[in-house]
């Protein structure tokens, strides 16, 4: 896996780094989700603030014990959860890569979102994290 580009890094800590995964077209869908400012599917300021602290906690401590806010969803895909916002992620070495985000409508993750996370993970790993 290539070294992370600066624009990929969300937060670095002593235990882990949290970064955006790169899709097959070079996009970073998790970054697009977190940076969108308007629309019903955009994260609120409260959700963004909560996610910021969750990512920092993961980077600092290397784990999150609260499975209401971070849990394994399917296979290699885990989820950061803050209120209605969900961010899918997978781990590769000491880096947690964020695949994409969405606003939840039901408690259970839709299969389509898990499929999307696995597809982005596959594309990221095949390209070695290159844009």
């Amino acid at each position, binding site marked *: 896996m290539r070294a992370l580009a600066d624009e990929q890094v969300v937060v670095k800590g002593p235990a882990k780094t949290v970064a955006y995964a790169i899709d097959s077209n070079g996009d970073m869908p998790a970054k697009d989700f977190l940076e969108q400012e308007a629309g019903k599917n955009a994260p609120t300021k*409260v959700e963004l603030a*909560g996610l*910021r602290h969750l990512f920092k906690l993961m980077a600092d401590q290397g784990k*999150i014990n*609260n499975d*209401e806010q971070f849990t394994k969803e399917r296979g290699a895909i885990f989820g950061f959860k803050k209120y209605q916002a969900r961010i899918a992620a997978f781990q590769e070495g000491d880096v947690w890569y964020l695949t994409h985000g969405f606003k939840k409508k039901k408690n259970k993750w839709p299969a389509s979102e898990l499929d999307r996370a696995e597809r982005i993970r596959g594309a990221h790993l095949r390209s070695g994290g290159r844009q």
Partner: protein
Amino acid sequence: MTANWIKKLEHDREGRRILEQERLILEVTEAIATLLADQKVSRSELASRIGTSPAFVTKLLRGDNNFTLRTLSDVFFAMDRAAHLSIGDIGGSAVLCAGPAPKPLRLDSTAWGRTRGAWAEGAHRPSPVSRDSEGIAA
């Protein structure tokens, strides 16, 4: 390197205010989750100890409801722990204070004292009360 959306949050006072709320909520919810895991206490067991439902404990762990200080004190007390307040600078990250259970308070010939273990290694300890604040109180 800080992500743009984090820089935007930190840029204005409203964003910083929300960040502080969410930091405190994460510290509390993660401390409860850590204690539950360390002491192998289930949500149902904690609910039973504080006279509520497991669904209430789930809401508590999600952090999406406001809970009274009395409720939080009862939650920690139910796990033989107590929450302590520490005031610090704005802009910090969540710090976990749920270390191993301390030895009980002891009374000896000199003073009350809290023995080691109440704060996790590297945790942000509260500063002792300064003489200045004593002066204000007087």
